[in-house]
């Protein structure tokens, strides 16, 4: 069942923008807290002064236009790209000490799907950290992987070479791989991109299961229409954090306008999304 968050309040022109980052004072219990993080490629900043606290057990959507630094945010948290400045704490400790508690679901296009591995083998990769260097994958590991494929509903495709899977099935494989990591914090880069409706539903159910189990998920999301439905909290990102906090307070027309600026087509989408929740004044 989908648990529908209350719709965002109708934006009124007089309302003050919720600009102050909610994580101004960082809570030590935060699943993820990012302090003044700046990231640059070739000296050109792509993320400025990101300050963010993610409370445990929340589903957080990261929203922003193309090139806003959404993927960069996740990669910088995971130490995959260097930070110019700032500090990242995962459950109160530096990421390097908490690696085993964090699972990463990269963008589907980031890997070569012609690679000679089966869906089951890809899922088993999530266990490699736990298995340790030099040790082989055993039957027990394969059973865990198969169970995870069952959870995402494609256990029957376990032996398929991954290029023989549909886009949605490939995405489910990636999610199953994150599941076997049994992490507390899940960082997902566009899991909903170009998937079929059934997969989208399956992912939503999975996210809710994770939340019910007290896990936290940070999800890069591109579909503004479903943000309010899927996520408790939202981070509006465009090089800086434009706004972050509870979806019903932060996901407003004003903030979206600030985030997306003059990108008209996207703004139309945003307007439609808002109009559906509450008629525009």
């Amino acid at each position: 069942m989908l648990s529908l968050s209350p719709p965002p309040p109708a934006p009124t022109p007089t309302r003050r923008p919720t600009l102050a980052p909610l994580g101004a004072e960082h809570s030590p219990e935060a699943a993820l807290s990012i302090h003044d993080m700046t990231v640059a490629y070739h000296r050109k900043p792509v993320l400025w002064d990101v300050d963010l606290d993610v409370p445990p057990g929340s589903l957080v959507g990261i929203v922003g236009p193309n090139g806003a630094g959404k993927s960069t945010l996740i990669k910088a948290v995971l130490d995959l790209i260097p930070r110019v400045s700032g500090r990242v704490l995962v459950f109160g400790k530096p990421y390097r000490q908490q690696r085993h508690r964090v699972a990463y679901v990269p963008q589907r296009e980031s890997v070569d799907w012609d690679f000679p591995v089966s869906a089951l083998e890809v899922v088993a990769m999530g266990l490699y950290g736990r298995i340790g260097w030099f040790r082989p994958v055993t039957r027990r590991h394969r059973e865990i992987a198969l169970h995870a494929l069952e959870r995402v509903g494609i256990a029957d495709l376990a032996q398929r070479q991954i290029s023989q899977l549909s886009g949605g099935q490939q995405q489910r494989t990636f999610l199953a791989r994150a599941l076997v990591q049994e992490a507390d914090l899940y960082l997902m880069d566009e899991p909903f991109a170009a998937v079929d409706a059934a997969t989208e539903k399956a992912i939503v159910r999975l996210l809710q299961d994770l939340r019910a189990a007290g896990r936290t998920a940070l999800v890069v999301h591109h579909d503004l229409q479903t943000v309010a439905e899927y996520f408790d909290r939202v981070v509006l990102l465009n090089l800086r954090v434009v706004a972050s906090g509870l979806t019903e307070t932060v996901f407003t027309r004003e903030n979206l306008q600030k985030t997306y600026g003059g990108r008209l087509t996207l703004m139309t989408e945003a307007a439609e999304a808002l109009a559906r929740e509450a008629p525009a004044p």
Partner: protein
Amino acid sequence: MLARVLESLRSWEWALDGWIIVAGALCAAASALVGTFLVLRRMSMMGDAISHAVLPGLAVAFLVTGSRASVPMFLGAAVVGVLTALFTEWVRGVGKVDEGASMGVVFTSLFALGLLLVVQAADHVDLDPGCVLYGAIELTPLDTVTVVGREVPRVVVMLGAVFLLNLTCVLVLYKELQISSFDPALATTLGINARGLHFLLMTLVAVTAVASFETVGNILVVAMLVVPAATAFLLTRRLSVLLVLAVGFGVGSAVVGHVAALAVPAAFGYASTNTAGMMALTSGVGLLAAIVVTLLRRGQPLRIKNPPGSPLFVDGGGTVRVSGGGR
């Protein structure tokens, strides 16, 4: 014609031809093991780059030690191999050019430096530039060392050692090489050092290239690294099977290549030809055969997604085309 072929094979001597085949097979097998991962990483050109770039490493080792002692040669090669990978990354980052361009700059410069050094060194030590470039597999049986009371060609011992090194690394680090080739970012988040494994692979490629330069030479080793793996890639969707097939194709092309080097020219009334060249040609014919088999097996026009950077692809109509480097 058949009589001429039989005549050419009558001079077959296991003590000579046997060792030549063993050397070729070990070279092909060692190359196929690391070459498979180059092909899977879409880095086949890196094999080309490194096998050329090790030349200055070899030359410096010759100039410093004044001999063809194996250990300094391998050290020199390994260092330059890793340097090639590092320089390539650096030129790409600083020069803001694509990987192909930066690789082209780095390896041609290193190769040119190596060529100058080799020509210089040739005056002082027993080193023939032609041999470095094209190999001299036919001379394999002449230079032997004694191993447990038996005369074994030095090259065979060296290639055997490199084959065992590569095999050990692939067996022990199978899952690490797999994950870091498929999804290096995930590997890194799991605490598996993908960058370290990248440089390990580059080192193995460099060492393999050095061990191979006396047999198939600096240039044709690229064929041994890439072609058997590319052939196997067409025929299987399992990494373990792919590795076995690639080694099998490599060894097969060594055997067939040597026999063909004797027999094919004889059929037309010529003297035997270069074995290394025939090995590379055989593996190329094998790749073509694999394409045909794939076509027939599917019973429909072959559709292979054009791998980025691959010069060869099969278009929607089933025609094999050579791409201009675009997608």
